[in-house]
């Protein structure tokens, strides 16, 4: 394991309690969590609602104080403002200033992050086009759909070209077409060498996006590892066969048994409902990040 100082995000023994009443009643949102996100990875922080994902992210971003333990970004403690220089954040169910237009919002955050004035306008136009909102940029955010809000949220997160992106439930409440588009954008960011921490409770949607995942439940880490290792069934292979006569299945099984293997099941290969929806609703959309072929 690489030293934590080289890590994009390092969480070390994090425990976070919230006080419920003046009598000292507490709820433990995160319990002894330790994990490391290496640069260049797409890291999935997965788990059901209330598992501690958003709390972990808030502590990493310095929005909340840890009760025990510590967190850092690129080796800088989360308690320091400078830890957030190279970070772009898209919160869960983003709520932006509704009285602003899309362009005004991105420009505001670009200025806050210190994007050079000389290239500010061009950079804002660039990211707005990149997220596909060029035609809606002058409209007020109050007129944006959920998917559009997520995309403008991505724009403000990347406008200052950060090395690390933290996306909290980026596809929650977004339709399959919108989810696919967001997934596509995430993969493009990865191709640029960015590190992405992605939190979601929609496991199927992000399966194809992440290199490595951590699964949280009730504040505790229950599983961590590379996606391929975790989802691949060890000791089994799947063959896709065309034109097989059902009567030959028995012969095929006997042949395999003679060679020390076994035919466990004969099934029809399945596509996904998500794929069917996209093929019929928006056949021109690039293949979903959930498609293995896309990777």
């Amino acid at each position, binding site marked *: 394991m690489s030293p934590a100082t080289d890590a994009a995000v390092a969480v070390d023994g994090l425990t976070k309690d919230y006080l419920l009443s003046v009598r000292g009643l507490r709820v433990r949102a995160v319990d002894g969590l330790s994990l490391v996100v290496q640069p260049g990875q797409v890291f999935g922080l997965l788990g059901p609602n209330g598992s501690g994902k958003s709390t972990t992210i*808030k502590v990493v*971003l*310095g*929005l*909340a*104080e840890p009760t025990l333990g510590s967190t850092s*970004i*690129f*080796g*800088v403690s989360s308690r*320091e*403002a*400078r*830890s*957030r*220089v*190279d*970070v772009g*954040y*898209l*919160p869960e169910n*983003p*709520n*932006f*200033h509704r*009285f*602003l237009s899309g362009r005004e919002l991105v420009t*505001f*955050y670009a*200025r*806050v*992050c*210190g994007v050079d004035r000389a290239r500010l306008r061009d950079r804002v136009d660039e990211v707005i086009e990149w997220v596909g909102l060029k035609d809606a940029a002058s409209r007020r955010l109050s007129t944006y759909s959920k998917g559009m809000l997520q995309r403008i*949220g991505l724009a*403000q997160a990347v406008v200052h070209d950060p090395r690390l992106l*933290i996306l909290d439930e980026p596809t929650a409440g977004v339709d399959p077409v919108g989810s696919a588009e967001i997934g596509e954008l995430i993969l493009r960011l990865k191709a640029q060498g960015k590190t992405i921490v992605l939190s979601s409770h929609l496991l199927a949607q992000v399966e194809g996006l992440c290199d490595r995942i951590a699964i949280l439940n009730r504040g505790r880490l229950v599983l961590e590892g590379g996606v391929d290792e975790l989802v691949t069934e060890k000791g089994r292979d799947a063959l896709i066969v065309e034109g097989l006569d059902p009567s030959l299945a028995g012969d095929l099984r006997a042949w395999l048994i003679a060679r020390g293997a076994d035919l466990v099941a004969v099934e029809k290969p399945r596509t996904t409902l998500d794929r069917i929806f996209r093929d019929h609703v928006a056949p021109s959309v690039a293949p979903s990040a959930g498609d293995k072929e896309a990777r």
Partner: protein
Amino acid sequence: MSASVRFSPARIAVIAELTVLEAVRQRLFGALLVLAAGMIAGAQLLREFNFGSSELKFITDFGFGAVTLFGTILAVVTAAQLFFAEIENRTALTLLAKPVFRAEFVLGKFAGVAVVLALFVVVTTGALVTVLWMREGALMEVAPEAFERGRLVHYGSVVAFGALQWLKFAAIAALTLVVASFANTNLYSVVISFLIVLICHLQYLAQESWQKLGSGLARGAALLLASVFPNFQMFSVGDRIAAGQPIDPAVLGGSAAYGGLYLAVFLALAIHLFRRREI
């Protein structure tokens, strides 16, 4: 290695700019302006009563009253709304996840509210000065004997009144930020802030009467009240000006210093409390 981040007035200015934009695009500010300007213009109707030169006192009193009352409401409501909305709507999450110091956030919000209050004072005081100038000119022609020594209104003092009221409103806005930085709802912020503002207007009564109270508990409470809350009657300089006297420079200086002190104290407290707040 992350670049260093320094406390930045430029970032404060960006946040302030956003705050002003939000206030301008909200209806409350516009409605208050119209209301206050209408009240001042309504003083013109006093002409029907033929008060003579006393009419100028009434116009000034009503004008000062409008500026003070509506300005106080604007200060509390705008500060609470523009600050708390960020927390309630969670737009503060995205902003504070940037390399922004909590102090910059508080000061940026305050600066935006201060600009809004300054706009309000400039417009309403400007309207009052205009109405007074025009009415005084008309009265000088109709009843010149009352104006033998020239104009009665001290316009410089009227402007000074406006400036001092802005300082008072800024202190009230900062006080509201103190409450908002630990409050759980916008309504709580507004109600508690108004209550505190009312107490601050009556503080001088506690100051003068605590020794005369009977029970030890009442005396202690009154003394605590007098010691902890600021005296907002320090800004009540309008009566003298309305009576045709210029503002005393000692009053202007002392009240301004007093207001400046409490403005700084409230801002520091708001920053301290907000630093400890979990978003």
